[in-house]
């Protein structure tokens, strides 16, 4: 993917995140510095509890850092907003609304000031068609499969035409086949929309297959960025061809080496 002229579209500077807990302050992230270029696909990978989601929430603006600054397009991130759309791990669709209404809620919020009702509906239909859910538009989340729900979640995020797409382990709860299918769809959509993407994952293959840059995080508490790996595989990427590619194997090995040799996860018994 061609990376545009702005190499620091998202700019994270010296971010620290401390949570107050009953046992005193808990430092989740420390001294995190990261730059994401416009149009870049970045994966955050690390063991569970290493603060990947915390970092994503910071970029989303759902939480504010205790120290440091986060900039998006040269403006400080002071709170959540539709220009930084989030796809949540558990889809977070409203169960009393149909798929159409779930997406429409987002579309309406962003575009109702400038567009007519018919245009808003057309937008919603278009984005549902993009994720292949036209047939399920009038169904409620309880009536469709997990993969379909996650696609509605992605459609809702995409419908806002966000500058940044934030994905929090979007495919974590899905079976391997559905996950592969949605990854391919996501690759196509991202290629089409040229979106800047930050994705949290714990799946090495997913990280290598999808991203331009893999940000590997050290173990918490006080986690930080251990290493950043640039994935220079040509796009469009094909998972079948890549499976035999030596480059792909090398990237994969680099990540595995980081995760399992240098940052081997130590389970703490005292939670």
């Amino acid at each position, binding site marked *: 993917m061609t990376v545009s002229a702005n190499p620091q579209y998202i700019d994270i500077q010296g971010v620290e995140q401390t949570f107050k807990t009953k046992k005193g302050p808990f430092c989740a992230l420390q001294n995190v510095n990261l730059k994401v270029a416009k149009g870049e696909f970045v994966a955050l990978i690390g063991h569970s509890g290493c603060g990947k989601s915390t970092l994503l929430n910071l970029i*989303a603006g*759902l939480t504010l850092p205790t120290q440091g600054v986060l900039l998006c397009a040269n403006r400080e991130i002071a*709170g*959540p*907003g*539709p220009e*930084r*759309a*989030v796809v*949540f*791990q*558990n*889809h*977070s*669709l*409203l*169960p*009393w*609304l149909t798929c159409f209404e779930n997406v429409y*809620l*987002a579309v309406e*919020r962003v575009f109702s000031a400038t567009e007519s009702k018919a245009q808003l509906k057309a937008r919603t239909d278009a984005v549902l068609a993009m994720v292949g859910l036209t047939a399920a538009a009038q169904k*409620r*989340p*309880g009536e469709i499969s997990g993969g379909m729900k996650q696609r509605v979640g992605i459609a809702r995020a995409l419908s*806002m035409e966000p500058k940044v797409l934030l994905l929090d382990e979007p495919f974590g709860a899905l079976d391997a086949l559905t996950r592969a299918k949605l990854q391919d769809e996501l690759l196509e959509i991202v290629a089409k929309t040229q979106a800047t993407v930050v994705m949290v994952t714990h799946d090495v293959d997913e990280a290598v297959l999808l991203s331009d840059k893999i940000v590997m995080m050290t173990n918490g508490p006080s986690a930080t960025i251990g290493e950043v790996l640039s994935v220079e595989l040509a796009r469009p990427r094909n998972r079948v061809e890549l499976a035999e590619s030596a480059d792909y194997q090398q990237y994969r090995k680099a990540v595995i080496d980081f995760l399992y040799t240098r940052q081997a996860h130590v389970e703490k018994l005292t939670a």
Partner: protein
Amino acid sequence: MVSAVFHSPLEAAAPPERSALASIAAEATGVAAPTINMKKSANATTPSARTAWDASFLWLRVLPPLLGLGLLVLIWELVSFGTGASIPSPKDTFLQAVTLFSDPFYRHGPNDQGVGWNVLSSLQRVAVGFGLAALVGIPVGFMIGRFAFLSRMFNPLISLLRPVSPLAWLPIGLLVFKGADPAAIWTIFICSIWPMIINTAVGVQRVPQDYMNVARVLNLSEWKIVTKILFPSVLPYMLTGVRLAVSTAWLVIVAAEMLTGGVGIGFWVWDEWNNLNVKNIIIAIFVIGIVGLLLEHALIRLATAFTFEEVKS
């Protein structure tokens, strides 16, 4: 559920139109049937479920409730026998009930009205008191749930006032409203407001954080948050509050009416006690029980209709 009693195995093989009608009828009887089975088995009246009509169904679903009722009648009969019929026997009571219900809506002066009028006027009091409580309690619950400050402010008040027996409020009502009827309504109001406030507030506090995150990411207006997220997700809690409130109100109205007099099922019980008409008292107990059961059952059905699958993480 009891509805399945009305279906023979032949009906399962009946043409679709007929079984559709039968299932509607079953739904209707399912609502009215005095059953304490609160599970969603009413939904089981689909044709496939009806073919499951067999010995085990009879054994598990039909026989136990019938045996329970039978046991009640048996004990009643024994007690009646033991007390030398000062407690009337089930048969005498039943015969009395038949005459009573053959003319439920007569009026012979203010202190002698049909059982129908008594039940209706009690229900009316409950409806007014309960309606006012809902009008006040649900918005208050929303506010308390939404704002931690208000929650801390009102929690001590609620904790202090909630355990007070509603009847203790009756004299205050009589004093302030200078009338029996408004005082009874006031009592219903004060006893049904707490479950609605508390359940609504808890519901608001328990709105999944995910939904609120969605609201924040989409940057929804407060109005949209209330109508699209808070209200639908609080609704099941609110309806639980409503159900508890109605049950309490129905418990309280009988006692309140005994004290205030007038027309009403509670007053009727007291009046029949003064007449030493024990048969009518027993009938009144059944009527109160059945009406309470119907109220409860109707609200449970309402609640299940508005309960949606939660997001599972």
